[in-house]
Structures are given as structure tokens and as C-alpha cells.
């Protein structure tokens, strides 16, 4: 079936360091979305990026559709970036299929 794999499973950073999160998906995606889930549980959409490169603040997402992969780059990490980052794909207007997430912990 359709699968979304994320790596690494967890990441520990010192404040100020950069991070690169990876997402690989098993079939062609018409939508690729990155989410942040806080330790409290709320889910926030960071970027929708089915192809190419998109930026928002300190975040950059690059999706190579034909290679079925996407990355999320966090630059100059801050303690408030701690939480879980989820990648999700959609195959054409249907529901999102989520990866298992990367848990990021940023220490001061």
C-alpha cells in the first residue's frame, strides 16, 4: 500500500544548529504537506510543497516528485522548534497519508 517514510526518527540539536529532515513516499503524490505537532498535540501546517522548493521563515522544503522524496531544512534552530515534524502525501484530492514523524529536540 501507500507508504510515507520519515528519517531520522529523532534528532537532538544544539540551539543555532541546522537540521535536515527527510520524507520518502512510495507512489506519486499530488500534494505533499509538512506539519509541526507541538508537545501539547496541536497540528500546524508548515508548508504545502508537491514539487520544487518553498521557503517560509527559517524553513525550506524541497520536493523532487519523480524521485518521490521531500526534505525539510530548519536553519538556526531554536528551542521553540522542539516537537514532532510530520510529512504527509495526498494522491489526488483524497485524505492525507502520514509518516511516523521526526521528533526534534533543541537544547539551549
Amino acid at each position, binding site marked *: 500500500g501507500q507508504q510515507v517514510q520519515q528519517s531520522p526518527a529523532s534528532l537532538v540539536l544544539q540551539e543555532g544548529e541546522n537540521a535536515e529532515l527527510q520524507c520518502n513516499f512510495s507512489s506519486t503524490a499530488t500534494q505533499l504537506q509538512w506539519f509541526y505537532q507541538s508537545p501539547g*498535540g496541536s497540528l500546524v501546517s508548515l508548508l504545502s510543497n508537491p514539487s520544487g522548493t518553498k521557503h517560509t521563515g527559517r524553513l525550506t522544503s524541497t520536493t523532487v516528485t519523480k524521485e518521490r522524496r521531500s526534505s525539510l531544512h530548519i536553519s538556526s534552530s531554536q528551542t521553540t522548534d522542539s516537537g514532532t515534524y510530520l510529512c*504527509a502525501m495526498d494522491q489526488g*484530492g483524497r485524505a492525507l*497519508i502520514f509518516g*511516523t514523524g521526526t521528533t526534534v529536540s533543541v537544547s539551549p
Partner: protein
Amino acid sequence: ETAVFQTPNYHVTQVGNEVSFNCKQTLGHDTMYWYKQDSKKLLKIMFSYNNKQLIVNETVPRRFSPQSSDKAHLNLRIKSVEPEDSAVYLCASSSTGPDTQYFGPGTRLLVL
């Protein structure tokens, strides 16, 4: 304020009871979803609802049923809860097609 709203935030109940969760979106979207996030934090789709068309994930037990009065509301009813139903239930909405989905804050259910 335009967003996705869910009530209640948290609900504790006993095995066999019926529960109902509410979801409302003020984003003008025409598709709504219910997802379940289990204890391992994995998010899985339960239902999507668009223009009165319901798409059901075949793994969802029959005791779960979505209820919609209009395209801005999609409630979730669980007829007779079981311990494995303890989870966070997240509602989302989007426009038709492969569009960005926006999520509500979730309802945490604990079944004793």
C-alpha cells in the same frame, strides 16, 4: 476568526457508552476529514466527506459514524466505545482536490 474548531477538548467515558464529537470549519472549504492519532502518534484517516459523498477507510469499525448537517460541520459519533478507541481525534478541512488541509486542535478520548 477562520479556522477549524473541535469540541470537546477532552472526554473520559466508560466502555459501552456512546460519545459524539463536534467539528466546525469557517474556512469555506467543501471537504472535511476525521483522523485518529493513536498512542504511537501515528495519524490515520477515518473518513472524508465532500458534497455529501462519504469515503470511509475500510479499517474503521462500524461503531464509528460521521454526521454532517452542512459542509461546514462534520461530527463523529462512536456508538459503543471500546478501550482501543482511546486516542486523539483530529478534524481537518480543505478545498476540493489536492489542497492544503487545516487541522483542528483535536479531541482526546480516554475510555476506562
